[in-house]
């Protein structure tokens, strides 16, 4: 696959890894966050961590729209399906997200809800055209990448004057989430001096021990691997203010594993050189301004929501989108008069601390026992892109020394 396979080349990976190994300062502990689940996925699936030196640590960020979807929103979708008797269309990703009362959309479907997986927002619109006697609701989730197609179907429904189609908009915005991560801890006065050893107070282990669940401390993340496909839509410009304001380097990177490795190398270099800039590794798809067409249709249909709850991060102002008044008819929340009710996460869950890089999955008491991908308790276990699920599904072997018979034979 052109423009895919080239960016998964193991031979090249080795060379970039060697460069990283060559360039890291042995006495410095590098802590970077890949914001996006897409990067987490690449890191896990391709085993990228194996190629990093021990003193480069990747923290898995909250950039998975499924993981941050709060229980209360899934409850609303279930309410629509079970009580308002609508055809609820949704992407496959949301089907297994746990809701209240042991439910999920999959389980609501088993209880009789007419819930259909769609591959595209357009399929939901078509569903409405094909079932004029039923109300069809598209339960829309996603970051800026996924929002424009939703905007398109709302606009098209309005043009056609469809009376049986609406959208439960749960689209969220990337920049406010990044800001929340950065604001989570003590504001920093300036960048760490280049090459300086981390202060005792910023030692992640100690921070993890001190910071309780829901605390507002943050681990010292030294840089961000920035979103790939979100940036295709919004461009690289919006990140500039973070880099400046928080003095953190950001490298926008593609979702292929070589992109990630290269971004890490670029972050190492910025840290080493004391820079805090926005760099773009993903120039093949990301421009400074992004996709203006997509931005226009989003702007036509959506406006900022006052506040929105993010699972694991809490309620954040202006962090999500809602349907504009002029398209109110297509807003399922208005049409069905839905009232949002926030549902607290399980007390044992350490997701908040994990998303902030303060803790790791294995620090959670119920990781891998009560909380598993079959039975996700916290947001990080919901999608395979969540920090806990990724570690469980792809990385668990890292917690044990493996004794491979063949290796033994070779030894």
């Amino acid at each position, binding site marked *: 696959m052109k423009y895919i396979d080239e960016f998964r080349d193991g031979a090249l990976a080795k060379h970039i890894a060697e460069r990283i190994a060559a360039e890291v300062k042995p006495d410095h502990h590098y802590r970077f966050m890949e914001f996006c689940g897409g990067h987490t996925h690449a890191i896990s699936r391709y085993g990228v961590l194996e190629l990093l030196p021990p003193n480069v640590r990747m923290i898995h960020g909250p950039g998975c729209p499924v993981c941050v979807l709060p229980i209360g929103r899934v409850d609303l979708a279930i309410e629509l399906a079970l009580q308002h008797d609508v055809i609820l269309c949704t992407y496959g990703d949301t089907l297994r997200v746990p809701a209240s009362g042991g439910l999920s959309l999959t389980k609501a479907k*088993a209880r009789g809800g007419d819930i259909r997986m769609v591959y595209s927002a357009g399929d939901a619109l078509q569903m409405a055209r094909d079932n004029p006697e039923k109300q069809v609701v598209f339960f829309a989730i996603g970051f800026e990448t996924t929002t424009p197609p939703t905007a398109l179907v709302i606009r098209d429904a309005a043009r056609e004057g469809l009376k049986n189609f609406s959208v439960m908009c749960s689209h969220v915005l990337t920049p406010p989430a990044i800001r929340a991560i950065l604001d989570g801890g003590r504001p920093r006065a300036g960048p760490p001096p280049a090459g300086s050893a981390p202060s005792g107070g910023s030692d992640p282990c100690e921070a993890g021990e001190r910071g309780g669940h829901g605390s507002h401390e943050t681990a010292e993340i030294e840089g961000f691997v920035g979103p790939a496909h979100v940036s295709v839509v919004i461009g690289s410009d919006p990140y500039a203010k973070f880099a400046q304001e928080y003095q953190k380097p950001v490298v926008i990177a593609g979702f292929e594993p070589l992109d990630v490795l290269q971004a890490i190398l670029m972050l190492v270099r910025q840290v080493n050189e004391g820079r805090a800039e926005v760099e773009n590794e993903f120039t093949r798809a990301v421009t400074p301004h992004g996709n203006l067409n997509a931005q226009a249709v989003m702007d036509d249909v959506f406006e900022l929501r006052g506040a929105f709850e993010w699972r694991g991060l809490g309620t954040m102002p202006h962090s999500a989108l809602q349907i504009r008044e002029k398209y109110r008819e297509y807003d399922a929340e208005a049409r069905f008069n839905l009232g949002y009710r926030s549902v607290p996460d399980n007390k044992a869950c350490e997701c908040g601390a994990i998303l902030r890089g303060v803790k790791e999955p294995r*620090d959670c008491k119920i990781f891998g026992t009560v909380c598993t991908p079959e039975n996700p308790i916290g947001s990080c276990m919901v999608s395979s892109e969540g920090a806990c699920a990724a570690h469980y599904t792809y990385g668990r072997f890292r917690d044990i020394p493996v004794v491979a018979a063949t290796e033994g034979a070779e030894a």
Partner: protein
Amino acid sequence: MRVDHDNPPPNPPNQASTVKKTYTRPLDIRHGRIDMGHGAGGKAAAQLIEELFLPALDNPFLRQGDDGAALPLPTLANGAGQLVMATDGHVVSPIFFPGGDLGCLAVHGTVNDVVMMGAQPLYLSASFIIEEGYPLADLQRIVQSLGAAAREAGVPVVTGDTKVVEKGKGDGVFISTTGVGLLAPGVSVSGKNARAGDVILVSGTIGDHGVAVLSQRESLAFETTIESDTAALHTLVAELMAAAPGAVRVLRDPTRGGLATTLNEIARQSGVGMRLQEAAIPVKPQVDAACELLGLDPLYVANEGKLIAIVAPEAAEAALAALRAHPLGAGAARIGEVTTDPHHFVQMDTRFGGRRVVDWLSGEQLPRIC
């Protein structure tokens, strides 16, 4: 060799392994329902099998855990004898009915087909097709009933399969079972073997199963104490064969289509006619009454624990006595004879003193108003 730990663990590595043994939360059988995940072949499917199916069907063959079962084959002298194989899909609605349920029916229906070949049933397989949303508690009841029936019949369910279909693409649970049995050398029991002059026996009252099931249909709902006759007939047949060695020509369980259709099948297969005596055919009064009410004929109503035996005339008395001596054959009766008839008509002398054809079931037997 690569490093196994690339980052210093935040907790001191005070133990060799920090991985936790996977703990699976047990199935919530009381409130849970089947969802598509249970049919995807992954962990949920494995859990369903381990926690629900295996305990209910418990036997060492099934626990082999492979996609099939390796089974001892009882050897007969000189390797003689034949294998018998029979299969049935079970789709009863409602799934639970007076006297039984889908689970035990799935055992009886197939074991009886093996037994009706004159064979000793040895093993069963069971393939479940479950509709999304089906309550786990009900599924457990079915599987437990199936397991109990299999144990009672001495025929273990040695291998199985589970599929889940989307809601609206199934009807609760369907079970297809296949039975394997061993036929002793020299035994030939077949629908082809009826000869003019043979005697037709039935092992008890007819129509009980069908009426018990109908009584539960919402649209027909009537109160009855009739229960399904569902039962495995292997011991009954063993007694019968012992009492009339070599004289049992045909065995058949009159299930779908009832006594009438089954006799017509045999008549056609053997190229004979039959003459029945209505007065001799045992029917419970409540079955009669339900049929009157709904415009049905008990001769066409399904049975699940009865058999028709066609035996040589000289052995008829012994055969009937053997049936009657067994609890499952206490109501056995001689109901007619095999005749020569190129048209393969099954005829009946009515209790009223007349005569009529007893034809194949045509279409479905539906409640009538006229």
